């Protein structure tokens, strides 16, 4: 096992923790955070591949991660605005209760 | 325009900042232990006992009548009258204690005293290390000369003194008037 594989294992473990969290928790905020963690795990992969690429490209992985971070920030903002809207609607943020499309 | 108010405000504080160095009259505070603000004449805090002569305890005006002790709302005065060998009550206090931790400066003791023996003091630096013994004043600490009273409350003291001398004169006149028709057999009037 080389260092790249170690990095990939770390990132897949992070991805799976995020996945398990997003699936098993009922709080909307924690589900959103789990999705954030999955995005972060993908970013770890980009950096790991960029770092250990046998034929290095100057900045590709870094650029990828910069865009991913920007999109993740946008996702967090919209997601949490949704959480607040849900809370205003049904006075809690349990995911099971948000089942109606029309309110 | 936006911001002009801020600049005006900054100018004001800068003026005060610089001015406080050049113009001591601007400083609103007094450096207390070195300098003191003169105390207004009618300021009062805790009572003291007036004495007339050089010996503070012997010449107290107080006759231990206990009126003030009875009237004191927070019950901070404790008086025991002096007795001679036969147990006869003398007209002076053996114990006169005021607990100024309890006293509320109401001045009722001064109002009710028929002999002008208790007056309000202006001494306020009374901090003590012990709040029980340190703030329980005995007659030795309470006794202060009439001249001190005249110094701290000049107007009031002048009235009291005028009244006392008038009373003394009247008593002396009555005494001399009584002495002619009949020899003095009665007890003398209470010492003023």
């Amino acid at each position, binding site marked *: 096992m080389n260092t790249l594989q170690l990095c990939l294992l770390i990132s897949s473990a992070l991805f799976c923790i995020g996945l398990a969290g997003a699936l098993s928790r009922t709080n909307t905020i924690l589900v959103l955070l789990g999705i954030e963690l999955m995005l972060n795990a993908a970013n770890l992969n980009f950096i790991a591949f960029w770092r250990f690429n046998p034929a290095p490209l100057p900045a590709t992985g870094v650029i990828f991660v910069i865009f991913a971070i920007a999109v993740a920030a946008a996702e967090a903002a919209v997601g949490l605005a949704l959480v607040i809207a849900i809370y205003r609607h049904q006075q809690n943020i349990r995911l099971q209760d948000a089942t109606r499309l029309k309110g | 325009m*936006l911001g002009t108010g*801020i600049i005006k405000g*900054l100018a*004001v504080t800068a003026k005060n900042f610089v001015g*406080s*160095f050049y113009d001591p009259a601007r400083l609103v505070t007094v450096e207390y232990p070195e300098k003191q603000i003169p105390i207004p004449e009618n300021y009062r805090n805790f009572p003291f006992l007036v004495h007339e002569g050089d010996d503070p305890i012997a010449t107290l005006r107080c006759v231990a009548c206990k009126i003030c002790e009875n009237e004191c709302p927070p019950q901070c005065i404790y008086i025991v009258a002096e007795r001679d060998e036969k147990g006869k009550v003398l007209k002076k206090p053996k114990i006169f204690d005021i607990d100024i931790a309890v006293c509320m400066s109401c001045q009722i003791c001064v109002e009710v005293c028929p002999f002008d023996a208790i007056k309000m003091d202006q001494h306020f630096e009374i901090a003590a290390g012990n709040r029980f013994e340190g703030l329980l004043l005995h007659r030795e600490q309470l006794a202060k000369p009439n001249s001190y009273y005249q110094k701290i409350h000049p107007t009031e003291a002048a009235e009291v003194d005028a009244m006392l001398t008038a009373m003394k004169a009247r008593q002396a006149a009555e005494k001399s008037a009584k002495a002619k028709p009949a020899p003095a057999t009665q007890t003398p009037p209470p010492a003023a």
Partner: protein
Amino acid sequence: MNAPANTNSLLERAPVMIRDWIIGFFPESLRWPVGALLAIAAMLAVFGLVFAFLTLAERKLLGRAQNRPGPNRSGLPFFRGTKLFGLTQPFADAVKMLTKEDIVPRAADHLLHFLAPVLVVAFALMTFAVIPYGRQLVAVDIDAGVLYFFAAGAATELAIFMAGWASHNKYSLIGAMRALAQLISYELPLLLSVVPVVMLAGTLSPTKIVEAQANVPGGLIPHWHVFTPWGAVGFAIFMVAALAEANRSPFDLPEGESELVAGHLTEYSGFKYALFFMAEYFGMIGLTGMGATLFLGGWQAPCAFLEFIPSYLWFGVKMLSLILFMMWIRATLLRLRIDQLTRLAWKFLVPLALINLGTAAFWSRTDSWSGPLQFVRWAIALALIVVPFVVIGRRLTAGLAPRTYRYAT
């Protein structure tokens, strides 16, 4: 470094020489960690002292601005009657703070309650690492130093939130929420005001930004960013946002002692309180240091013939005058309300900073204009600043006539 003779004097090189002399005693493998530790120790000592005397300076300045003498009584321990203008006040305060009882509410979140003051000082100290204090005096010279500075600074607000949450006190929690709202609002103008500098200097490294503001040899006018139209606006926005980031008056809503007791500090006492106090001043030192670096030429002397004075002294003078200006503002302005605070950020500072970005772009495109065109360049740039300022400012204050007082004169 082949600098001119007068920039290479003994005083200029003294800090570096002392460091080299001390790490000369250690074997080769230990030199790097020892040098880093020395830098940390020197920074802690210098800024600890600066912090101590800044507290005194602030109290003196506020006192004088309110026509009071300020603290002037503390003397020396065994010489009664000495006063020394109160110069020993900080040490008396320190002794008092350290000997006070450390009270933790029973319902508090004990771990977070303990971690918050530690973290807030740690993050504030981390920002010091990238500021260039002098010609060769920078602890860590990293390529993305400006970004590092703001990343570390953003984290302090997290520690303030932890303090407010862990105290289990409603005032603390309101203070923490205000701190969050304030940070979210003012992070944006702070970063946007820095972007033009990064754009025109073409680097994120603080040392290179300082070098970009170097004097023209023999020049008399400082070549600082603040003396350009976009730089002046950027500096003003930076200072306003820095006041908010450092929780200084008039943006000290998280503490707000008149309405929130002491905000997030309510349940802190003794040494932990002192740590928060220290972090506030460290934050102020860091932000003003970065402001001086980005806009006021960092350690550069104003003109070439003044370069015989060591660079770190110039830096100190600039930083201290900015801090004193912040204190002057504190003596003058009232605390804002929370809605006024966010309105000022989103409706005034952010649009202004965005327009300023355009001005900076114009300035960099017209770099080659000279002669009479120079005047045209200045006129256009100034118009690009003044017109939005007046228009947005009028929008902001619309409907607010000068207040009339019915009972006060």
